[in-house]
């Protein structure tokens, strides 16, 4: 977990892959240099509800997911990915692939924001189970 804690250098994080054991590969780069072919967005699922980790809202470069979902009411991950892909293309002149990792949990996660009236839609998906 300490890998998300930085020293004095300003660097952002992008998750580029997740294996079946839940190990997420994190890449570090300064803004504008953070161009990776794949960007993985994480959602937790517990008891039929979806949760987004607050830590990642603050720490990932491809944020802020909660602004799109909660404030702008973009109510599916499929639409969130359309917006993120479009923004990446327009602002960064970079085309990448957004992938959702849905981590199914046995108990409610800590430090997360519950998403209400939210659906996944048609997205590239990695599902992992605790």
């Amino acid at each position, binding site marked *: 977990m300490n890998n*998300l*804690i930085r020293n004095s250098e300003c660097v952002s994080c992008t998750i580029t892959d997740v294996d079946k054991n839940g190990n997420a590969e994190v890449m570090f780069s*300064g*803004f504008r240099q953070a161009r990776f072919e794949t960007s993985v967005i994480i959602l937790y699922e517990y008891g039929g509800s979806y949760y987004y980790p*607050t*830590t990642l809202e*603050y720490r990932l470069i491809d944020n802020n997911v909660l602004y799109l979902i*909660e404030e702008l009411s973009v109510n599916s991950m499929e*639409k969130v990915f359309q917006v993120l892909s479009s*923004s990446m293309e327009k602002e960064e002149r970079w085309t990448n692939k957004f992938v959702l990792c849905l981590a199914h949990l046995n108990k409610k996660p800590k430090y997360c924001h519950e998403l209400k009236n939210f659906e996944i839609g048609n997205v590239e998906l990695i599902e992992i189970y605790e």
Partner: protein
Amino acid sequence: MAINLFDLAHNLSPKQYAEIILSSGDYFPGFYRFTMGTRTYEHDQMTVSGLIKYYLNQQTTNQYRNRGQWFQKSFERMNSLDERLKSRSDYSVYELLSKKYKDWIDCGDSYDVVVIETHNKKPFLMNETYFYMGALIRFTEENILLGYDDYRDESVETIPINFNESSEIIDRIYKENFSDLFLPAKIVGNINFVGEMGELKMSDSLFEHTLMVDSNSVVIASNRTKSSELSMRWAKDICLTEYE
């Protein structure tokens, strides 16, 4: 490097959580957040002196602004933003964002108003509220208060990290640039709409605070109806119209 997502879900200590939150300070904060450099005055945007004048006038006349008057500036900004959004390659995304953005600006009944002291750099202090990466954060003797609201004296989250521990984390991460990334800020009031008319409410102490801040400080609003449960609800601003 790797992190384990199941550990992130269940095994994060309060100190690790605070450290990750405090690791996100960046001059270029990424998509959908303003950088510090863009938190500057725009023509016809509500200023500190306009806010004070409006509040005093409202208190003496009981006349309130309507929704269109409060948010005219935001809609003007939106129209110019519209041209930028049209340059997106995917027109359906433009349509989606355009409608959602307008709804976000004017669908609420309650809007909090923050004053961010962009020209008043302060060191790391106990019981001072800072604007940090789109959130308001306060360090008390016993806790870090994330999403702190000076108007209501409440926060979205309380992280049990005392001031000495906070100080150690801040010293480690922000040796030199703390005051660039943490700007003194307070929610000074709330605009409450009944129907189309919006009344600005302020406490006496926060009105006095507003009288004292640097006149170049930035005044913006957040749609409380939509986002009171989000700590990072000041990442994008809703501009209020200036009052002459």
